């Protein structure tokens, strides 16, 4: 190269980088297509994550609630009515003010749809001046957490068509939508009327890219600045890429196997424990998740600080023990190694779904590990709805899925649904435990002192560990590939926000 040209070139490059730091829009990619604008749809959460729409309540990394559109909230003394006071001066992106009446309309619409609000015993939502009042049928301590869920997004009245369908996203967050190209792309820009700190990233767009391999290649080639939903192997590879770094957060999510506890073979805790002992979680986490720490020793991951119990004995791989337990239950290996009892061979069906790409892979690994233990497992990879459907008609035997215990920031809401007496689609099946129900109900009513609550949670975790109505397999670490030019990137363990407003382009 010519000696003079080199500094010139460097200079212009620097200039270009400097300029681009001002103007360059941020490219986010993820697997989620935008099929609908309705907050209750699976796409709704995207508008929360992009900080376009707000909910009344927000949450931090640990799920501690903090003000959102409501600046404070207060339960009545009988715990049957909650009052949420709206933030002063909040405005929608179309310039109109956020009023309590608007919020009530949005929440009433949400109540008519299936979703999170069903879990709370709400009898009415009313506007009272600047306050929104929620009337309950019975006490429900985690109610504010429910109003942190994206199903309860507050959209401006102009977002709705006459028939109640959502035609546009007019929220009140720091970013406003500039362009919507369903099902692939949303482009946003910083909202000038936002009351909080002005975001450094002024322009961003989210694009849905269906295949994981395409996403990792886009990150690798620098086409995308942040890529979500990467498979473990790509993450391992991208760690050595010069362009991107990997940012991770452990999620309050567990990959677990649901048992049909009413099944004639699966109805004893001893049997379920023996199956648990046949599973080498360490190997699965190492080989498939590339993350040995993610081998689940109990249901609740350490990131659920309040619920994770360090004192519980860990679930471990004990094939010898398992063999003895099977034998004690009458299951003896036949000539081909498969367990037989009274002429019946131990064969089960495991259902799972491909929406989370690691699940079929994990199912395959589990299938082989259980085969070595003498259990013939047929893996059925189908639609995610096959699991609740099979739960309903009672044909389910085993199901492998990833359960998010932070659908709302307080896991109690999900636990109350999943582990109550009659079972639930994504929780237990034909299993109940009076002690556990009692503890959960007490937590739900609220009013327990902190040590009492902690004791109740320990009891719940202990029962689950002993009875194993669901079998924890692995925990979950969310990772994203992030361009090295970006600063201030962190992942929200609650998966509520991409935190665009706190990022900036580095120098």
């Amino acid at each position, binding site marked *: 190269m010519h000696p003079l040209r080199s500094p010139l070139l460097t200079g212009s490059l620097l200039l270009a980088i400097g300029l681009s730091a001002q103007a360059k829009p941020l490219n986010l990619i993820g697997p989620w297509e935008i099929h609908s604008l309705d907050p209750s749809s699976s796409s709704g959460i995207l508008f929360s994550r992009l900080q376009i729409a707000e909910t009344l309540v927000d949450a931090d990394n640990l799920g501690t609630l903090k003000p959102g559109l409501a600046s404070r909230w207060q339960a009545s003394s009988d715990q049957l009515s909650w009052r949420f006071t709206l933030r002063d001066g909040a405005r929608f992106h179309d310039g109109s003010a956020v009023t309590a009446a608007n919020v009530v309309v949005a929440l009433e619409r949400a109540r008519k749809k299936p979703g999170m609000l069903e879990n709370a015993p709400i009898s009415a939502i009313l506007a009272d001046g600047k306050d929104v009042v929620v009337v309950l049928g019975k006490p429900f301590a985690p109610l504010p957490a429910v109003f942190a869920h994206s199903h309860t997004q507050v959209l401006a009245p102009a977002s709705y068509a006459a028939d109640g369908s959502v035609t546009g996203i007019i929220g009140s967050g720091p970013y406003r939508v500039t362009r919507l190209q369903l099902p692939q792309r949303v482009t946003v820009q910083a909202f000038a009327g936002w009351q909080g700190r002005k975001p450094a990233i002024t322009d961003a767009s989210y694009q849905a890219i269906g295949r*994981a*391999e395409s996403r*990792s290649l886009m990150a690798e080639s620098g086409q995308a600045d942040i890529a979500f939903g990467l*498979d473990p*192997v*790509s993450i*391992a*590879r991208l760690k050595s890429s010069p362009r991107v770094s990997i940012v991770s957060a452990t999620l309050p999510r567990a990959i677990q196997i649901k048992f049909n506890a009413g099944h004639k073979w699966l109805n004893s805790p001893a049997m379920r424990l023996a199956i648990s002992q046949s599973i*080498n979680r360490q*190997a*699965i986490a*190492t*080989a*498939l998740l590339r993350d040995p720490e993610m081998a689940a020793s109990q249901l609740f991951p350490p990131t659920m600080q309040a619920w994770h119990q360090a004192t519980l004995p860990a679930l471990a791989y004990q094939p010898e023990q398992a063999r003895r337990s099977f034998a004690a239950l009458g299951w003896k290996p036949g000539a081909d190694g498969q367990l037989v009892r009274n002429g019946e061979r131990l064969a089960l069906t495991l259902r799972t779904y*491909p929406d989370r790409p690691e699940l*079929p*892979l994990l*199912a*395959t*690994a589990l*299938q*082989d*590990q259980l*085969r070595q233990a003498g259990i013939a497992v047929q*893996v*059925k*990879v*189908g639609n995610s709805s096959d699991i609740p459907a099979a739960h309903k008609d009672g044909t389910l035997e085993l199901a492998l899925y990833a359960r998010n215990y932070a659908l709302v920031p307080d896991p109690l809401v999900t636990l109350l649904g999943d582990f109550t007496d009659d079972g639930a689609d994504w929780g237990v099946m034909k299993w109940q435990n009076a002690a556990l129900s009692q503890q959960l109900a007490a937590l739900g009513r609220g009013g327990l002192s902190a040590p009492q609550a902690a004791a109740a949670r320990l009891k719940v975790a202990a029962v689950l560990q002993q009875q194993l109505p669901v079998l924890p397999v692995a925990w979950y670490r969310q990772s994203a590939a992030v361009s090295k030019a970006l600063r201030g990137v962190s992942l929200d363990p609650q998966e509520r926000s991409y935190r665009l407003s706190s990022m900036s382009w580095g120098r």
Partner: protein
Amino acid sequence: MTPLTSRAWPQRLGYLLLAAVLLFALAGPLLWPDYAGQQLMRFLETPSLAEPLGRDQLGRSVIARLASAARLSLWLAGLCVLSAALLGCLLGVLSAWRGGWTDTVLRGLADGVLALPGLLIVLIFSAMAQGGFLTLYIGLALAQWVEYFRMTRARSRLLLASPHVEASRLLGFGPAHIVRRHLWPELAPMLLTMMSFGLATAILALSTLGFVGVGIQPPTPELGLMMTEALPHYSEAPQLLLAPVAVLALTLAALVLLRPLEVNS
């Protein structure tokens, strides 16, 4: 059949490749029978003498999976092509023989199916039951029969209207004789050519379906599925991706080369 040595080199190469793939698909599963056994802690083991292609992400033997996948692809594709050819030929001859309404209806149906690209038919069928061999088979066979139908019908119509068939009829011969002496010898070589091509299409479709995620379900090894699974490992274990790609490419190249090539220099 003309002897192998008198054929053009591309064809000879095609036979050689096909024989190699067939040998691998038939003998491979006997030599390396355990395609499902995992040794999780030995994932992505590099190739060794015992495991010539190493182990995959679940610590399974790659060569065993590859052999089994090759056998499955050839077997399923062969079955589809045979069924499609049989159905297409029968309907084609029927249509040409009966003419009239039979012909009109069958031709309309064939035209309709023709406008429905094969992959779409297979996709719709796989949507009905994921991973079922039967649906895949029906879908692939239904997507392919039209070609055979059209060819058989067109040729048979010409042949049935030809003087030699008329002469045979005047001589008092019945349909069996006409099919055996007049139609079959004309149709057979074309059918063979089409079937080799159809086989390639079917194998390709199978692997594509595996890639789209509606084909054969794991852990059954299938070429497209193996590629999809191996894809993330392309940099850490390239042999994982290259092995199924090579088998697929060699099979397809063999089938393409088998076609009598129009090299009339």
